[in-house]
């Protein structure tokens, strides 16, 4: 098969593959199917029998103007379709696409048209992908890929060839091409197909092999033995020692509903686990019972913890949390979560309001927590005695066997208090003011860590403070518990979220009030070595926000997100449609009113209204035609050369290319006569031809003489002979290729 023919055929097949996938994805109206089928049939016929068809079809071929009108009508039809018939973006767009395809199929003349055809077929393939998820799409996709490889190959081959022999294409009808295009062999065919298929296979391989987990396989650093700050499900005060600050990021928390710049630095308590039992060295949970949370609606888990009584009117705080993989099953949120939204298999909660996953997460996970914060009731601020439920008294008043001095200290501190709330506040301030926060506690295995902290050492970290406060509260009869989690203080200005790191792991206290519920108290003073943001930190946080966006837009871009995007486009299209139809109806009503008013006011008595309307319509048509004509005149005047001059310039350039293939190129600063002289010295046998063509060229180009058909035909024949001459000399002997500067007359 000839190269050109194969190229046309594969282009049409490519378009057909795209179109076929479209027809299977959506039911097209029959007339559109017939139209497209006809266009495909005609295009294929023109490939197979170019001569016969072009002769018979010449009379039936529509002019460029007709096609332009067709396109304009199709575009108008698209809007009518969108607004009135199918009333949706996608079907209307596809109908328009098919009309474009028909247009391009019928006008495959220039390279550009082929490129347009490919673009249309690609859009068709994508559109059908958006419409269907069925298995038959796979074979079409594969066929499209294979033909696509083919078409691109042939396209480039043909283009290369045409660059070598440019004018051949334009004048093939004048005389049969003397230089046959290369033929395609079966071997070429099969090699290309094998290449396409193997490329597809390799792509599939990569598709399945590329890991889709949010954490790199090879970057886990095991074997870290140093105690690091961080969250763990055990609070053990017995082992003391210097604690390393671990800056790795645990989660990022966005508060989408909280706006305003004042709130951004406010620390955020992200609650993990609560403990009620302290044995003098470590904390544990004596209420291990966990409850499965109901999942209703999908992906939303609601929970009601006993002991928390969120006021129904309380404002819910929403947090969007992106949690890095952590070696724990605990899920974090500000106190107290009421519902959690996320892709979890199941979710459990214990009696103290802590949330647990069934298994630790090993991928980065995004979830949303709705919490209702608790505040101390006004009535309870003053009351000297409170009535606690039995359950609370049982669980949250346990005090281990501690030194009597601790209990004495607690009594001393709370003595001046007139209300329970005041007692709590006194203990809180005492711990805040009389103790020093220090992570560098000398390594020591202490049997009585609490006494060490409170009485002798007086320095410690959050767990010491929180334990001391809980124990002292309980010793004076106030129910309290220890909570561990993270204290988010690092606000990322660039992304607008809190960055929570391992070193932000924290422990604090929850105090029970019967009406208000559990109130969060933090007896730990802020770390003294906190420094203000430096440029390094801000650069870091900017980098981190970029990382987060990357994660969100690329790593975790899922089918769900795609669906959301498509949904958004669809809804947008719908909005545009309704808006447009409203404006259009309003406009058309106005227009009709104006026209009818004009008609009535213009009508002299006796003339029918429709006559005036006819005159107006004719005037509008005439005006349109006049504008079109003026536009066309402007475009034709744009080129400084007449068509004859352009023809002769093209011819001359073709001749120059023939000479260039012999190694004789015309320097840009050489005139045609100087070049002719060069030809005479270096390629004598071609000189008469070049001379003749140059004469015609200068005559028409600069003399603006008329170009007769005979002269053009002769010159074209001369160029063709010149090309043949070039081939024959190239075959017989290598031409002299030494660069010769044009001999200039000085």
């Amino acid at each position, binding site marked *: 098969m000839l190269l050109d023919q194969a190229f046309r055929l594969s282009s049409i097949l490519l378009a057909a593959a795209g179109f076929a996938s479209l027809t299977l994805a959506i039911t097209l109206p029959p007339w559109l199917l017939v139209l497209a089928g006809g266009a495909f049939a005609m295009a294929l016929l023109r490939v197979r029998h170019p001569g016969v068809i072009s002769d018979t079809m010449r009379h039936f071929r529509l002019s460029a103007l007709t096609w332009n009108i067709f396109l304009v009508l199709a575009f108008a039809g698209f809007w009518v379709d969108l607004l009135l018939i199918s009333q949706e973006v996608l079907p209307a767009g596809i109908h328009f696409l098919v009309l474009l395809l028909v247009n391009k199929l019928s006008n495959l003349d220039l390279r550009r048209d082929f490129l347009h055809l490919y673009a249309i077929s690609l859009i068709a393939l994508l559109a059908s992908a958006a419409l269907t998820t069925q298995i038959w799409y796979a074979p079409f996709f594969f066929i499209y890929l294979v033909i696509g490889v083919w078409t691109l190959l042939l396209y480039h081959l043909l283009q290369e060839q045409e660059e070598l022999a440019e004018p051949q294409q334009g004048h093939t009808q004048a005389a049969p091409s003397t230089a046959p295009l290369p033929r395609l062999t079966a071997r070429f065919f099969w090699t290309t197909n094998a290449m396409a298929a193997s490329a597809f296979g390799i792509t599939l391989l990569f598709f399945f092999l590329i890991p889709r987990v949010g954490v790199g396989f090879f970057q886990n650093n095991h074997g870290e033995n140093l105690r690091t700050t961080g969250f763990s499900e055990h609070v053990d005060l017995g082992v003391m020692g210097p604690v390393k600050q671990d800056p790795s990021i645990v989660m990022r928390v966005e508060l989408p509903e909280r706006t305003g710049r004042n709130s951004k630095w406010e620390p955020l308590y992200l609650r993990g686990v609560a403990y009620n039992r302290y044995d003098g060295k470590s904390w544990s949970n004596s209420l291990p019972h966990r409850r499965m949370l109901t999942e209703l609606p999908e992906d939303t888990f609601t929970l009601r913890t006993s002991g928390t009584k969120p006021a129904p009117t309380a404002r819910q705080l929403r947090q969007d949390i992106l949690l890095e993989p952590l070696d724990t099953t605990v899920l974090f949120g500000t106190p107290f979560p009421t519902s959690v939204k996320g892709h979890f298999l199941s979710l459990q909660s214990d009696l103290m309001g802590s949330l647990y996953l069934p298994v630790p997460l090993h991928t980065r996970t995004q979830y949303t927590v709705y919490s209702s914060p608790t505040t101390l009731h006004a009535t309870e601020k003053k009351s000297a005695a409170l009535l606690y439920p039995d359950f609370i008294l049982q669980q949250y008043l346990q005090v281990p066997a501690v030194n009597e001095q601790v209990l004495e200290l607690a009594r001393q501190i709370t003595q001046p208090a007139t209300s329970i709330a005041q007692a709590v506040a006194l203990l809180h301030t005492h711990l805040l003011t009389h103790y020093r926060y220090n992570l560098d506690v000398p390594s020591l295995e202490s049997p009585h860590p609490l006494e060490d902290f409170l009485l002798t050492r007086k320095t410690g970290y959050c767990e010491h403070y929180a334990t001391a406060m809980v124990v002292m509260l309980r010793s004076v009869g106030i129910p309290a518990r220890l909570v561990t989690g993270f204290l988010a203080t690092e606000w990322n200005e660039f992304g607008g979220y809190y960055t929570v790191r391992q070193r932000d792991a924290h422990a604090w206290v929850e105090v029970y009030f019967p009406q208000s519920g559990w109130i969060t108290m933090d007896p730990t003073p802020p770390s003294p070595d906190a420094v203000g943001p430096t440029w390094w930190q801000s650069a870091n946080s900017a980098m981190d926000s970029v990382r987060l966006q990357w994660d969100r837009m690329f790593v975790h871009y899922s089918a769900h997100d795609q669906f959301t995007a498509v949904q958004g486009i669809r809804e947008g299209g719908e909005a545009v449609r309704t808006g447009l139809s409203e404006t259009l109806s309003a406009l058309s009503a106005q227009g009709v009113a104006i026209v009818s008013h004009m008609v009535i006011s213009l009508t002299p008595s006796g003339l029918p209204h429709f006559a005036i309307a006819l005159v107006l319509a004719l005037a509008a048509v005439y005006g349109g035609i006049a504008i079109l004509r003026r536009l066309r005149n402007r475009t034709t005047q744009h080129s*400084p050369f007449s068509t004859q001059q352009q023809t002769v*310039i093209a011819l*001359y*350039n073709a001749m120059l290319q023939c000479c260039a293939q012999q190694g004789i190129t015309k*320097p*840009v*600063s*050489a*005139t*045609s*006569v*100087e070049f002719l002289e060069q030809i005479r010295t270096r390629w004598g046998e071609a000189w008469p031809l070049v001379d003749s063509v140059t004469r015609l060229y*200068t005559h028409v*180009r*600069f*003399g*603006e003489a008329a170009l007769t058909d005979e002269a053009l035909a002769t010159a074209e024949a001369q160029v063709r002979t010149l090309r043949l001459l070039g081939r024959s000399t190239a075959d017989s002997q290598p031409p002299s290729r030494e660069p010769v500067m044009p001999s*200039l*007359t*000085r």
Partner: protein
Amino acid sequence: MNSSQSINLLQDNIAQVIKGKSRVIELAVVCLLARGHLLIEDVPGVGKTTLAHSLARSLDCSFKRIQFTSDLLPSDIVGISVFNRQKQAFEFMPGPLFAHIVLADEINRTTPKTQSSLLEAMSEAQISVDNQTYPLHQPFMVIATQNPAEYHGTFPLPESQLDRFLMRLRIGYPTPDEERKVLERPQSLHPANDLQPVLTAQHILDLQAQVEKVRIEDSLMDYLLAIVQVTRQSDMLSLGVSTRGALALTKAAKSLALVRDRTYCLPEDIKELAPAVLSHRVMLNRAQGARGRSVEQAEGVIHDLLESVPVPV
């Protein structure tokens, strides 16, 4: 007799005397038809004067020769008013400028004062003496010669004067064969004296009118302007081509087209004429190491510059 025939006749006629210098003859005719003036600069004895002489002889026109010397006065060439006793009035006695073809031999030997008395005649083809303006004959052409080899006691022509010459030519030595032909000729008479006029003044005026009608295409005009522009930007030149120079190149190109029997200009016309028309209008930049004879240097620079300007296709 159409234009190409008459031009060929003229060239052939001159070629009887000036052997083997068809290009120089052609350029001289181009200059004549473009209503320009010619400056011939070469060593003595290569036929400068003979060229001028034979051109004048070939036309049925008046011809005057002025030998420029250092004591020549403006009145010697323009003419002088003399008191006529009979009429009791001054009477203007026309000088040698009142001729169709004027040969100004060794023009750089005279003083700038006398040189500049030529200015008005050359640019406006008229002469003003004593508040009276006298038109010169038409066609009017000044052919000046100067000797580049010897500069002692000369007054080099100022730029303004040079700019008034349409082109500057060098004749060069003939080839040995051609020189032999010159020597074999009978030496008794000046060879130009044998020439018979082939064209009348009216013929020349007609041809000059035809030059005006030669078509020059827009892109060629752009090409010409690009050449002019490039001379103004070149490092090799301290002074580029003036607008008068561009005008001169246009006129000369049209004239060459007519001489070559065309009604339209080609890029060749412009490119070929550029050295002759432009080289005396530019000043070499001495800082860029211009040395040797400035005539050849300038032509060389123009040649090089032409190779940097793309020809319209």
